């Protein structure tokens, strides 16, 4: 079974001189030199496959790079560079052609020559000394420490400990952070990126070497997996000069092939005498079937047949990676690139995953037809994958504030490039950054300054707090926008949705309770019941924008109670009982129930939302369309400018969307402000002040102007404000601004229109204190009237008559029948009167 894959076989492309050795790493110390990479290479050139046959059956292929034993490491890679001064362009061809032309053109003899050449070996075509690289790697592995403070401490280097871990769990690879290499030895890093094939081969030889000295019993081959390169390349910028270099790129997996078993070693059996051959290894992508039986007594020609279950195979998978949407220029389609995964990397990602891949960019020539040797002028490219890392699916880095403490995420996750960070930090130092960000938020929606400030706070968010007792305090700020139609609420929502880290945009009208939370569905393929996340769960760590909140069904809305305070979604359905995180900020907007907001009614009456839900919003803004000529003029100006002027000149001094996004994500990720003592004091003082405002001296009326919920909101807001400044401390001015924001919002929504004071009862219960007082007064008056007019057990009186009586009493002002009904109902519960239909009877 000769797998005649020619140049197209990835295995074969690895057969560039160093890569070709799939030698058995099982006992490297035992047979030094017996199966050096160079040796096998030379054998391959002559079309012979015998040299390797002396090795015992090795475990499946583990390395694409030389796994030569430690005593003869050099030759395997010295003959590498065939392309003289040709620079990068020549190499890929050199890498792929020998294999494609094998048979007719034996590879140049350099491999053999290098073997016995001078002591100092060089990577072909360069002045990179193999010994130097070897030594540099040894130094790096032995000595690199994460905290290089105690340079002469007896503690072992990071990677030595890693290596021990590898022994412990019998892993076959070791992850190496390229950043560490860079920090330790820039020269080595540069060499590795430029000549990854060679350097990685040496890397693995060094690793094997170390493994055998530290743990002679460890028989597995250790592969070096490099990740976290300093620069990552955009997929569409891959060009011919990147071939054979180490690259790192981000993308989304769109297709995975099935796992392809790739033969590594074949065993043949003679059909005549039953003799089993020694394992025959893949040579340049093919296995040559022995022409005759090896057993001398038999020696029958063409009698050998492949024994499948004694062959060894390795996993291989081809994965297609597509550019992430943000890298695609206007009017382009996403580019794709093929990845080749081996062994443990197989199935490391699924379609739809966003990954960051480190690998070697390779090209291989395409043959005109499989049976022909002619090489087309075309090349197929792919990335030989070394390391794959899943990145978060969110648009922005929505780091989990709850999980930051373990410090792992911070390292692992996406890092901002330094230039950007500098730029952002510079921005944050500007004194007007708060105003500037406000201006940059939806710049084509004018006015609404305070609303935008509130939304800005929502974007930045407060700190979530988790107490040791398990109690959590949310850091997310919920905002409700209520307003007249045509006041660009929806546009604001859209804008925030675009900007926010993983946001979901839904419309209340089209959302169902399960669509918002989670539902159980049957997987069409497996038939298992699976939990599908709804909008709120999907926007965990983000902002869930709900348009037309008022039109949402009650059942859907009731789901929000839990989400907005506990930040979880609990479901118990179809045998699945789960509580899912939904740490999301809710940004909702609602229209008043009449088409226009009636300022004489309370918010609750205007939008018909249950007070329990309303109170969970930190900020409620009323966006009212007041007839204001000044505003109209500005609107007119704005629109005229939109249509006729150069757009650039209209919007100066605002941050563009990418910068804004980066700013927000950086702040959310890196800044975790704490309350300073001064701020805490101010907070207390302000809160007490607010509460006190509800007590009118000499009045029995008790108005609640602030509740504990408000103080939590205030803390969140001030934290967000500190974040805006990239400040680790919440200062007094943040708290004062938070108070101002809250007050602006409350003034709009929680103002009792009959008295003009803020009354939280309006939000929490839907009835203002003054209204309640009025009701009490009416009930008292009714009681008086009844006491006067009616006898105990006497004839009943009609409600209308009672109303007329009450109207005579001028102190009550306007009295409606409905008010009276309420009053009578109150009296009924007191057992004072009995109501039969429209008549009242004193009992």
């Amino acid at each position: 079974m000769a797998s005649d894959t020619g140049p197209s076989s990835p295995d074969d492309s690895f057969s560039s001189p160093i890569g070709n050795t799939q030698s058995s790493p099982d006992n490297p110390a035992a047979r030094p030199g017996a199966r050096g990479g160079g040796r096998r290479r030379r054998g391959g050139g002559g079309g012979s496959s015998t040299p390797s046959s002396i090795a015992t059956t090795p475990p499946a292929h583990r390395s694409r790079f030389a796994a030569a034993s430690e005593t003869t490491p050099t030759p395997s890679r010295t003959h590498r560079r065939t392309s003289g001064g040709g620079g990068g362009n020549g190499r890929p061809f050199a890498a792929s052609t020998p294999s494609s032309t094998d048979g007719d053109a034996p590879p140049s003899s350099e491999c053999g020559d290098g073997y016995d050449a001078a002591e100092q070996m060089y990577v072909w075509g360069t002045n990179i000394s193999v010994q130097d690289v070897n030594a540099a790697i040894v130094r790096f592995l032995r000595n690199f420490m994460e905290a290089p403070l105690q340079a002469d401490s007896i503690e072992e280097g990071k990677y030595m400990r890693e290596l021990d871990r590898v022994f412990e769990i019998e892993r076959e690879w070791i992850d190496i952070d390229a950043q560490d290499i860079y920090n330790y030895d820039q020269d080595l890093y540069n060499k590795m990126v430029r000549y990854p094939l060679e350097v990685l081969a040496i890397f693995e030889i060094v690793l094997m070497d170390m493994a055998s000295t530290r743990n002679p019993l460890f028989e597995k081959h250790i592969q070096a997996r490099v990740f976290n390169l300093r620069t990552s390349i955009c997929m569409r910028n891959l060009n011919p000069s990147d071939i054979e270099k180490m690259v790192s790129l981000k993308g989304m997996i769109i297709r995975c092939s099935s796992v392809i078993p790739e033969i590594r070693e074949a065993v043949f059996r003679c059909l005549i005498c039953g003799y089993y051959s020694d394992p025959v290894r893949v040579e340049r992508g093919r296995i040559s079937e022995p022409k005759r039986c090896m057993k001398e007594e038999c020696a029958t020609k063409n009698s050998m047949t492949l024994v499948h279950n004694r062959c060894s195979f390795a996993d291989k998978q081809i994965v297609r990676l597509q550019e992430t949407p943000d890298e695609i220029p206007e009017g382009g389609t996403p580019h794709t690139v093929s990845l080749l995964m081996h062994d443990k990397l197989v199935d490391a990602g699924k379609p739809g995953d966003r990954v960051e891949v480190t690998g070697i960019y390779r090209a291989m020539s395409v043959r005109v037809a499989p049976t022909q040797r002619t090489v087309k002028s075309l090349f197929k490219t792919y990335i030989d994958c070394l390391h794959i890392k899943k990145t978060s699916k969110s648009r922005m880095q929505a780091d989990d504030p709850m999980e930051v403490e373990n410090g792992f995420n911070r390292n692992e996750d996406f890092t901002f490039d330094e230039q950007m960070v500098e730029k952002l930090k510079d921005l944050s130092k500007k004194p007007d950054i708060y105003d500037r960000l406000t201006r940059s938020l939806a710049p084509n929606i004018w006015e609404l300054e305070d609303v935008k400030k509130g939304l800005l706070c929502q974007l930045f968010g407060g700190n979530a707090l988790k107490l040791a007792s398990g109690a959590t305090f949310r850091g997310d700020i919920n905002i409700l926008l209520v307003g007249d139609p045509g006041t660009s609420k929806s546009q604001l929502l859209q804008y925030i949705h675009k900007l926010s880290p993983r946001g979901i945009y839904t419309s209340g009208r089209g959302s169902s309770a399960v669509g918002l939370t989670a539902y159980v569905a049957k997987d069409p393929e497996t038939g298992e019941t699976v939990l599908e996340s709804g909008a709120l769960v999907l926007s965990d760590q983000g902002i869930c924008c709900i348009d037309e909140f008022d039109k949402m069904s009650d059942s859907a809305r009731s789901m929000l109670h839990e989400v907005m305070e506990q930040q979880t979604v609990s479901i118990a359905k179809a045998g699945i009982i789960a509580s899912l995180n939904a740490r999301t900020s809710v940004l909702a907007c609602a229209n008043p129930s009449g088409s226009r907001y009636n300022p004489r009614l309370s918010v609750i009456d205007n939008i018909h939302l249950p007070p329990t839900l309303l109170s969970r919003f930190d900020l409620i803004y009323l966006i009212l369309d007041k007839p204001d000529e000044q505003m109209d003029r500005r609107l007119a100006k704005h629109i005229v400018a939109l249509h006729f002027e150069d757009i650039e000149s209209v919007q100066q001094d605002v941050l563009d969307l990418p910068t804004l996004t980066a700013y927000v994500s950086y702040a959310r990720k890196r800044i975790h402000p704490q309350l300073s003592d001064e701020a805490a004091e101010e907070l207390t003082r302000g809160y007490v002040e607010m509460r006190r405002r509800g007590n009118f001296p000499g009045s029995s009326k008790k108005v609640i102007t602030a509740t504990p919920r408000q103080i939590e909101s205030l803390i969140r807001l001030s934290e967000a404000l500190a974040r805006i400044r990239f400040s680790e401390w919440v200062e007094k001015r943040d708290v004062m601004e938070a108070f101002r924001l809250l007050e602006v919002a409350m003034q709009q929504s929680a103002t009792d229109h009959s008295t003009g004071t803020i009354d939280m009862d309006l939000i929490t219960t839907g009835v203002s204190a003054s209204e309640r007082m009025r009701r009490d007064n009416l009930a008292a008056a009714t009681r008086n009237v009844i006491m006067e007019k009616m006898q105990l057990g006497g004839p009943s009186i009609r409600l209308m008559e009672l109303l007329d009586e009450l109207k005579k009493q001028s102190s009550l002002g306007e009295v409606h029948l409905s008010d009276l009904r309420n009053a009578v109902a109150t009296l009924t519960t007191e057992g004072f009167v009995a109501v039969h239909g429209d008549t009242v009877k004193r009992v």
Partner: protein
Amino acid sequence: MVGLPYDCLANPLGAVRFTFEKAVAAGADPAALNGKDWGAGDLFRDVLFDRGALSQVPVLNAKNIGHVQPNTLVRFRGMIQDMLGNEFYAGAYKDGSLWRTNKYRDVSQYPMGSSPDMHIWERHLLYCVQVPGLNPWADTSSGTVVARPGDQTSQHGEKRRRADNEDIDQMDMETSEDGIQRSSGVKKLREDGHPSQNLQLPEPVAESTGFGACSMPREEGDSLSCLIKVYDSSDSELKLNDVFEFVGVLTFDSDYQVDNDEFLDGFSEDTLASLPLNKVPRLHCLVHTKLAAHDFLHSTPLELKPQLVKEVRETLLSHLTAVLGNDGLAAHLVLLHLLSRVHARIDNFAVGKLSVNLTCFNKESVSIFGNHLMLAIKDLLPFSHIVPLTVDYLNAASLAPKKDYETNRLVTGLMQLPEGTHLTIDETQLEVGTLNSVGVENARLLKYLSEYQKVEYDFKYYKMELAADFQLLILSEGKSNILPADLVIPFQPSSVASGGVVAAETLEAWQWYLATVRSLSHSIDSDMQKVVENDLVAARQANRNLSSQDFSRLLTMGRLMSLSFGETSLSLEHWQMVKELERLRWERFA
């Protein structure tokens, strides 16, 4: 460049090689060249445009594809339907001591040893289709248009000139000195360097049906798609859905014989495998030019004189009025609508669009006026498309293009149209019914298109918005809910539609008028700006219900109104006209 040794049209590759050898001889280092142009592009530009040879280059279409010789220069006009990424090829290599290039060809002409002196260059692959919705009058490749005398003036506008098909057939020339011989029918390509190569050339593709039948929903049998290989261009230059004219070398080489190599096993990642050679010719592009509406005109561009513009405007307006059954207001608004285009985008807002919803149609009147209107539009604009909106249609149609990851191709949808396409959406056939998930998605897509002039392309794992610029005309009984238009106007015909026969010259004048005036720039002076602002403020004080959308519409109309007179800045007179039109329009609702 006198006395070229090669005929650029018949043997473009020879010319390419000539320039390459010249460049190398002049000291250009193939290593440093890195795929950049060494003068071949200039040569062809010179020959094609400055010397007017373009008109002799045959335009490739479904009918003549069987007759065009491979390795000759052809033209192809098409829309970029998909981008297939980059392709690496051995750009320059050494044959003995001579440098050779593979640029503009698929298979190397000389043996490429495994010599290290080889440089890999890259080229872009574009999948182009004939412009969807192209109206017959604008289709130069159909062979109906005959070049007029006096075309030697060789402007860009001349590009559309083409020789008759007969010319192509008569082209009986040596295409290459490399011994590539061919008879007109069977093409047998033999390359000197590869005697062993048994190139399986496509059978003569005489049967022109089924061309480009690559899962294109709007396949009509005789459209042609083409795989264009573009050199020397940046990504930013070529965009999806742009309409280009490519001039390049046509190849029928056995490009991509089915490689059944193991690498691809179980993973037919080769997108090109789905583009069979005999259906999709390959074009190695030498020169490409982006086409705008006026490139599709027949007549030589007229001079933009106010008097002339006014005349043409009057005749066109009266024509539209007649078509619309003497409804002058609707005709006026439709005229403005035909001139609209998105000229700026601010955040999500597309400035300049003016979609029109003609209401009060019923099934009878649509068959009279609707058809007349659609035919009239077809004659006026280069690209137009009619969407008969029914529940079944919404439930079944694939409007948005969709990425098929199996073949790694972008499967086109009906909404993949070039910029400036006119869409007539006939809602009068819409009846009560239930939309399935596809229908809901399609309705949402249409709404989104109408609001933001963007089409969401479905990339399975995410959606990608692509800016569109379609003129939307909606015919409906009541105000359309699926497509909220900028301008809703109840249609009130007072006589029977009388399109009448229009003289070809008049038609051409109208086509020219619409194409030219539409692309004019526009401004407003500060005095006029004051007036407009004051008017808007006053209007809003009077009617609180006026929103920014209403203001935008007024301004767009003002802009289009003055454009329709060929003027580039808004005058008071035109502004008053717009206000009057709006007043009349509102009266119809009263």
